[in-house]
């Protein structure tokens, strides 16, 4: 038995066997059907730590990534500068090797930090309460709609999603709807939209997938008059450091993606979904919630609360099936926001907004490009009938620049559309290089 992976010596193992009263391991698994026991598996040879590190570092080298300042990819996942302290503190094993905080007296570290996360997310979105996280922004959209359907007094389960929604959000919602069977419709933005009174809720993305920050006052007023619930989606919560918050608009439910508050893109996962809402809706919110209480000596402490909503108690009548969420990601965001503070967030939001305007201004010099006239934050929508954006991206890549998202590949309705995004690392000279390279491509 002796192996570097397992602690017992042969002598200890023999003693264990003696205590159990068996001679061989096989005596312990007599309940298993013999004909299926010990299948022949393809042999994988074990690697030691050095070999393992080398093997994985070779695989890492097969990903060709540029420095973030040379990348103009965004669309809801952004490169952010992360203060060193976030990685150091989340690496404390008391945090990352703990389970869900079922035993509160032994988990106050996790519980207090989730309570802080809830406070940060509620405050940022202008809402009263928050859950402790969901898988990602796309599943948070689906969970928001399920939540809204429970809150709405209306008989019909009708939802309308207005404006540019990320295709991956839509795909996930469509999948979830297989089991839900709601009436879900999608509509382009339209100033003169007339809302159907039977709608349970409308969903407004803010900023939307095209990086547009649109004034939602008109549609929200109309919805309120007709008793239609307001769900707002925030795929880039940094924007709320500058822009009117969903709470200030009067939203009922806010969902979003907070991976870009303190974490890396990491191929889209782990991400960090969240839902914030009004206190009145606490019993309908999916996922875990932490609350404050006291012990018998009146000492303040934190616990998982409103657990009767959850699957381990309510089983088939739970508000959601979610159990494990994205705890460590929520911890990262909490530490990130504690590191930046109010000023840090405001400054970063301003910096990104200004860079977005610089990108727009400089791109407008390109004669074949039509630049979005709406207010943009971080992402810039471009249209052109003449340019093959996939060709452009290949051309840019040869010049050490990662171009944007080719929207026409994602949705047939988005013909001739392209999305370029700035990030924390983008310098004005990177934008100049981009514009120069695009002009070079067009002239070729």
């Amino acid at each position, binding site marked *: 038995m002796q192996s570097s992976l397992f602690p017992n010596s042969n002598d200890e193992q023999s003693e264990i066997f003696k205590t159990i009263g068996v001679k061989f391991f096989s005596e312990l698994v007599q309940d298993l059907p013999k004909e299926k026991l010990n299948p022949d598996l393809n042999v994988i040879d074990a690697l030691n730590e050095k070999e393992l590190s080398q093997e994985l570092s070779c695989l890492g080298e097969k990903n060709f990534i540029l420095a973030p300042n040379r990348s103009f*990819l965004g669309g809801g996942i952004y490169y952010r500068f992360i203060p060193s302290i976030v990685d150091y503190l989340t690496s404390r094993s008391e945090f990352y090797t703990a389970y869900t905080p079922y035993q509160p*007296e032994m988990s106050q570290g996790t519980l207090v930090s989730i309570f802080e996360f809830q406070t940060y997310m509620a405050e940022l979105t202008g809402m009263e309460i928050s859950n402790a996280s969901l898988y990602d922004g796309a599943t948070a959209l689906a969970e928001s709609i399920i939540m809204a359907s429970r809150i709405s007094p209306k008989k019909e389960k009708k939802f309308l999603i207005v404006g540019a929604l990320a295709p991956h959000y839509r795909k996930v919602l469509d999948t979830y709807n297989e089991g839900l069977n709601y009436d879900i419709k999608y509509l382009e933005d339209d100033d003169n939209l007339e809302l159907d009174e039977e709608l349970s809720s409308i969903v407004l993305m803010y900023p939307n997938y095209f990086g547009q920050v649109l004034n939602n006052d008109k549609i929200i007023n109309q919805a309120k008059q007709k008793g239609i619930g307001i769900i707002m989606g925030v795929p880039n919560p940094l924007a709320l450091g500058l822009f009117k918050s969903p709470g200030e608009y009067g939203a009922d439910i806010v969902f979003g993606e907070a991976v870009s508050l303190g974490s890396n893109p990491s191929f889209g996962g782990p991400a960090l979904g969240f839902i914030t809402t009004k206190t009145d809706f606490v019993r309908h919110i999916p996922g875990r919630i932490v609350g404050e209480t006291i012990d018998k000596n009146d000492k303040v402490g934190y616990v998982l609360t409103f657990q009767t909503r959850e699957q381990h108690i309510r089983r088939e009548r739970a508000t959601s099936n979610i159990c494990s969420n994205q705890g460590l990601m929520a911890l990262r965001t909490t530490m990130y926001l*504690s*590191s930046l*503070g109010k000023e840090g967030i405001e400054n970063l939001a301003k910096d990104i907004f200004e860079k977005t305007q610089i990108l727009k201004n400089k791109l407008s010099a390109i004669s074949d490009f039509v630049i979005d006239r709406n207010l943009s934050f971080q992402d810039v929508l471009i249209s052109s009938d003449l340019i093959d954006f996939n060709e452009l991206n290949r051309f840019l890549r040869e010049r050490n620049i990662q171009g944007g998202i080719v929207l026409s590949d994602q949705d047939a309705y988005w013909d001739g559309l392209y999305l370029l995004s700035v990030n924390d690392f983008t310098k004005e000279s990177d934008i100049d290089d981009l514009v120069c390279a695009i002009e070079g491509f067009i002239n070729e």
Partner: protein
Amino acid sequence: MNNRPIFYKKEDEIKSVAPVAYADINGIPDELKRENSLRFPSLTETEVSRHYTYLSTLNHGVDSGFYPLGSCTMKYNYKVLEKIAAADAFQHVHPFDSIENTQGLLEILYKTDQYLSDIFGYEHFTFQPAAGAHGEYTGLLIIRAYHKDLGQSDRDVVLIPDSAHGTNPASAVLAGYRVRKIPTNEEGNLKLDILKQELGKYNVAALMLTNPSTLGLFETQILEIADIVHDAGGLLYYDGANANALMGLIRPGDMGFDVCHLNLHKTFGTPHGGGGPGSGPVGVKKLLVPFLPKPLVDFVDGQYILDDSSKKSIGQVHGFYGNVSVVIKTFAYILMHGTQGLKMASEQAIINANYLQEKLRNLYKLPFDRRCMHEFVLSASKVKKEFGISVLDIAKTLIDNGIHPPTIYFPQIVSECMMIEPTESESKETLDDFVEIMTKIRDEIEQNPDLLHNAPVSRIVGRLDEAKAVKEPKLTALN
């Protein structure tokens, strides 16, 4: 120091927070500007470091001490896995980057699929599900799509044992099913006659089963159950929460399970992170491959690609490819152990559980007197009756002894139960210490019950008033 949120420590500062900066910023109309100032504290790095370092000391992780939390597989998390997954070469990959630029990650996803498929007996795994419950839901949608494809959309019932994880029924309902409960018999197996009855009475889409069950017992009738369910046109779903008992020993695919999810954050040594990120990949037999979420990673003409072509696919269940960092750690964990090492891990987990069961069986009631797999269940119903000590009291006393309590009050079919899962990471010495503490606690139940009623006394807080947390909800520091 105290367990106080940072917002309370900076209460005065937050009360007089400055107005929103950049009210005069060019290019944003007034009606789009934020009005209410962010009530965020302003901290120096020293303050941030002290605050969270202190909070971490209020936690208990696998590195802090024994963590026999049943069904959660709290094995040691190797540090090298953390280091590998944290590399920029993985962390800085943007999900919208091209397949040409992401070959390394696609190769890891592809190979991990191959490894898991071989170890558990499936054709392919998808990595999109972000946790176990998400995997259950995905698996059920696959089953739903399969029956629909056969023109059997009227199969609307999922059968679930009474010992199942709560996520099973919750996932089934989310997937649009009705749930029927199958009771457990005196040996800890499924009541076959009831199963047959339900299959005759309802249009059953699937039976969801954990094997070994949450009692830590192997379902001995499994091959027969598989035949019965398949004969009735249903499918068999494997809840992989307890898969740590199986590696190299037996494959769910060979037992007749058509769909299976795994919890990589349990069986494959990736950390739980205080509640995620986990990963709940779903594996399927060949007949169900067309229904898997798309895209699937494939290897064609010397290149890893994302295959989006399946028309029968249930679609996407995650924005991108799931919790990829967790899959990287799993891939490395498999390479680190090799096939032999994985089998040894499962064997050792079973050995350790049987050792503890043997040592503790006379202290508390052993409701099912059988060899256990990787975990087992004890009942404190007798001491509850005789001495008024609940399993909660025992759990809280374990906390004062530096041990994370087992899972308690679950499975619900055993009263006053504790579900103990030691894992393969633990030495005989740790197990013996645990036995000694459990023995001491058993003595104190009779001699010093107040000690148990008052526990824990060694942590920053004592037992917390959970009813108050609901009656007077205080869910953020500012509202």
